[in-house]
């Protein structure tokens, strides 16, 4: 590795999400709250979901993280608001596959998230990009499934 494409990591859209993250306002009455941790750095994220049946009526992404995880969380807020739980799960799973190199970015429509695929060139940062999504998949959606059923 002799030169490294920093601008592939910090694309303009990422920096924009980082500077103006969406969904940063804590929800007044969240139905679901889930916390995720990146143990290698200590970064934490908290997801809040407000449900309307099986639909995500509102979402908040809280906690201070690096530009990558902040942008990723901001995109998450944008992408899953208004979706059903299944739709949100599908996006999260696809994004995880792409970041782990198990699917090509072309195969799936990731919207703004596509900008985060540059992170794959920085293996240690992949966890940052995935933090909010893994928290959604492993924790928030499981709880939401229960909340929905209640």
């Amino acid at each position, binding site marked *: 590795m002799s030169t490294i494409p920093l601008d592939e990591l910090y694309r303009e859209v990422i*920096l924009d999400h980082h500077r103006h993250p969406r969904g940063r306002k804590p929800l007044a009455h969240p139905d679901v709250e889930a916390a995720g941790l990146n143990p290698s*750095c*200590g970064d*934490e994220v908290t997801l809040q979901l407000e449900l309307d049946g099986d639909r995500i009526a509102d979402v908040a992404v809280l906690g*201070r993280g*690096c*530009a990558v995880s902040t942008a990723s969380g901001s995109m998450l807020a944008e992408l899953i608001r208004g979706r059903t739980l299944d739709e949100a799960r599908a996006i999260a799973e696809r994004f995880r596959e792409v970041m782990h190199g198990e699917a090509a970015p072309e195969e799936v429509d990731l919207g703004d998230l596509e900008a985060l695929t540059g992170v794959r060139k920085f293996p240690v940062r992949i966890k940052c990009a995935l933090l909010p999504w893994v928290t959604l998949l492993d924790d928030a959606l499981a709880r939401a499934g229960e909340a929905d059923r209640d």
Partner: protein
Amino acid sequence: METLLVDGEAVRARFPILGRTVHGRPLVYLDTAATAQRPEAVIEAEAAYSREHNANVHRGIHTLAEEATGAYEGCRRRVAAFLGAPGPRGVVMTRNATAAINLVARGLEHTLGAGDEIVLTVMEHHANLVPWIQLARRTGAVLRHAGFDPETGELDLDGMIRLIGPRTRLVGLVHVSNVLGTINPVAEVAEAAHRAGALVLVDAAQSVGHMPVAYPELGADFLVFSAHKCYGPMGLGFLVSTPETLERLEPVEGGGEMIERVELDAATWAEIPYRFEAGTPNVAAAAAFPAALDLLEAIGLPAVREHEIALNARAVETLERLGGLRIVGPRDPAARGGLVAFDDPLVHPHDMATIVDTRGVAVRAGHHCAQPLHRVLGLVATTRASWGVYTTGDEIEALAGAIAFARRTMGA
């Protein structure tokens, strides 16, 4: 003995890795607190051991085994002498500093009961927190932690001494904090601990090799450190004590080398320190480590320390010049070990480390295995730059330039 001046090319030239480039730029290695780079003499000594003398130790009669045993035991003597410790029989060789602390925690388990107290500090590395958490869970012992001033990084010494009481069995503290840089008043804490009849463990992972450390002056019953943070090989750590004190520890790992007689249902232990060294040790690393201590003594530990203080001063000044950074730990460069950790509200440590790396600058980002310490600071992570004998003032400038570049990259 040969005399070497730090901050001259003579020292840097001994570390082959410093010649490499990262992303097309010369490597600026500012992560010595995580692991120090190794001089060619150490690398070569380890290879020479494997090319000329390799054998298993102790149990062997043949020439190679005798040579290997000589090298292995020679390291024990050298480390005892380097620290002015009572003698080689008080030196146990382990995998790393972490293993040495675990050895003490497990070894003391049989002496502890519910309600016994262990006094630590909030600024400990996880290596000096987690083994005690595990021990407390198993025994019902109680953990107490002295705090520190988040502004100055200073240990609350009075508070710590007040925590030490008649039920205190062990007092553990870090000599030099790997985040704050704080140099703790170990001898004063040890004195209070000994008055209360408690044992004292000092985590010297960040001090040995970076400043003069004299075992008798610290007042420690147990001192631990890792060779790899001291310009030596990986896979080698030390527990330095006295044979009498080691006698109080139950052997933790069982196996070859550490026994006297083995029946199917019972075993008796070998002499101290061998009873704490089960299985084949890392003889190659032990054969090579003295070369690192030779280099340090050729420079002189006071000179090493002065060099690191000068770099501290330069770093604090340079970082303050950038503006807007929060430097943690003592302001006085002479009051800290050779490292500076900081928070830049404009650039998260993760982004900082990634971006300065593209300029060849290696710094560490994260909690540095000290989550409770960071909580006291009100931070999740910091960026840490740390130095050693090979670090130059120009490298501090390179760091400053790279930080400025990171801020520009992030549009800050």
